[in-house]
């Protein structure tokens, strides 16, 4: 079987697909690629079905070697890609000879990229998904130097593509957030601050959530909220009043009130620490 050898795993490289929806009632998070559309595009470029498992590569990049010749594509953060001694274009199918070293460089802009390989990463699925869940510990562990990953059999030819739409890496993100379900736990000051503050993405952010720092959101209701189900994009407000936006590996239930829910969290996949986040309400 064809394999990927992990020469240098980098800061955090995980196997990701579209996650394991449908198990939240058992406490199993959805997980999956932080930007599912980027992974889908990478898969289309190499001729895979869109839900095929690939790699999510964070910040520092990684070095890989294919034991057999194959086709890969890299989509997402602005990175240098090298196949052996030659540069390769992100956003296009790249032929990688057997034994050649594939280097994904550090992100120059953005934070994460997705690498698809024709045939897909063929590790054993867990509850229908090959995704690494960094919170619940399901799926394969984050990659380490020396790991070997099985690669499946390609099912289609690489896409005949010249140009793909580049990923955006804005310094300031504008996220649409609908109030609720627990905005009634906050006073009017909090609602004004939520929509009026330039928040900053904290370095403590990860696949579970984007932690923000900025004007704290004061509660109107003291005490504890009984745990309740939470969704992707929920803006949870812990006791310190600093909001946290739930991303793919978020827990299935939470005990802090959710003041609002972000429509589309995928821009946060590229948000480096220090990026500005502003919320806009559909009703404002």
């Amino acid at each position, binding site marked *: 079987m064809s394999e990927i050898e992990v020469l240098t795993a980098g800061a955090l490289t995980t196997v990701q697909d579209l996650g394991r*929806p*449908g*198990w*939240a*009632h*058992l*406490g*199993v998070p959805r997980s999956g690629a932080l930007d599912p559309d980027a992974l889908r595009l990478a898969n289309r470029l190499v001729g895979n079905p869109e839900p095929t498992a690939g790699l999510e590569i964070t910040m520092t990049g990684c070095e890989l070697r294919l034991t057999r010749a194959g086709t890969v594509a890299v989509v997402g953060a602005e990175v240098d890609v090298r196949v052996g001694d030659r540069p390769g274009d992100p956003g296009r199918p790249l032929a990688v000879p057997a034994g050649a070293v594939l280097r994904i460089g550090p992100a120059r802009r953005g934070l994460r990229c997705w690498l698809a390989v024709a045939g897909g990463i063929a590790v054993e699925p*867990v*509850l229908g998904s090959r995704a690494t869940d960094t919170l*619940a*510990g*399901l799926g394969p562990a984050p990659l380490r130097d020396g790991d070997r990953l099985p690669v499946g059999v390609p099912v289609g030819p690489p896409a005949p593509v010249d140009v793909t739409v580049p990923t955006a890496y804005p310094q300031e993100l504008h996220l649409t957030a*609908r109030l*609720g*379900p*627990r*905005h*009634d736990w906050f006073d009017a000051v909090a609602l004004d601050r939520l929509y009026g503050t330039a928040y900053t993405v904290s370095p403590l952010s990860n696949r579970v959530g984007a932690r923000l720092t900025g004007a704290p959101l004061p509660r*109107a*209701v003291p005490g504890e909220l*009984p*745990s*309740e*189900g*939470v*969704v992707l*994009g*929920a803006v949870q407000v812990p006791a310190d009043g600093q909001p946290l936006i739930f991303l793919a590996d978020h*827990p*299935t*239930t939470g005990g802090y009130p*959710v003041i609002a*829910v*972000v*429509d589309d969290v995928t821009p946060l996949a590229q948000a480096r620490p220090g990026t500005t986040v502003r919320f806009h309400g559909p009703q404002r």
Partner: protein
Amino acid sequence: MRIRRVGGHALLLDFAAPTDSEPDSPDALTPAEPVDPALVEGWRAELWRRRERAELVATEIVPAAATVLLDGVPDPAATAAAIRTWTPMPPLTTSAAAEPVEVPVTYDGEDLPRVAAHWHTDVPSVVRRIAQTEFRVAFCGFAPGFGYLTGLPAELAVPRLPSPRPRVPAGSVALAGPYAGIYPTASPGGWLLVGRTTLALFDVRADPPARLTPGTPVRLLPT
């Protein structure tokens, strides 16, 4: 019951809030009322049944202490309107008829004296009380396969540890608030430890992967 909108594709059925007529009506602050776990379970079972019959489209149906979350709902307004015409399944028809999961428990938890102090009794009485309780999985959360077990009366609720233990071994049987629970995997935890079991609670190869699914009756029997 109040139906709260959660973003663009989800609804939260809140049983602690008074009935509303409009999903987006201005919210008045209302003190949370205690919620009967049987009501949550009745709604969970009804929503599950409706989904099986394709009368409800939802990717996730997530019961919790006083709520049921529906996520992955294509038309939340229409779904909310439909739910208002539905009624929960009577509690005894959901899964009370099911055979309880019997969990063998070695009652040697280091927090037993602490629980006994909260309950104003001695350790053997604590063990007897837990062992005689007919628990039911109210909901899962915290970790895959972690079930919140209801059945103890509200007056026996116990506080969590002031600061959580960095590591609670897998299989630990513990109490917190009005709930009992069993840690499926080792993790940090602030629940009061009363015992341990060797029963595997989460196995990704099993169907369902969790032994303790919402609605399941559970006994914590002394070994």
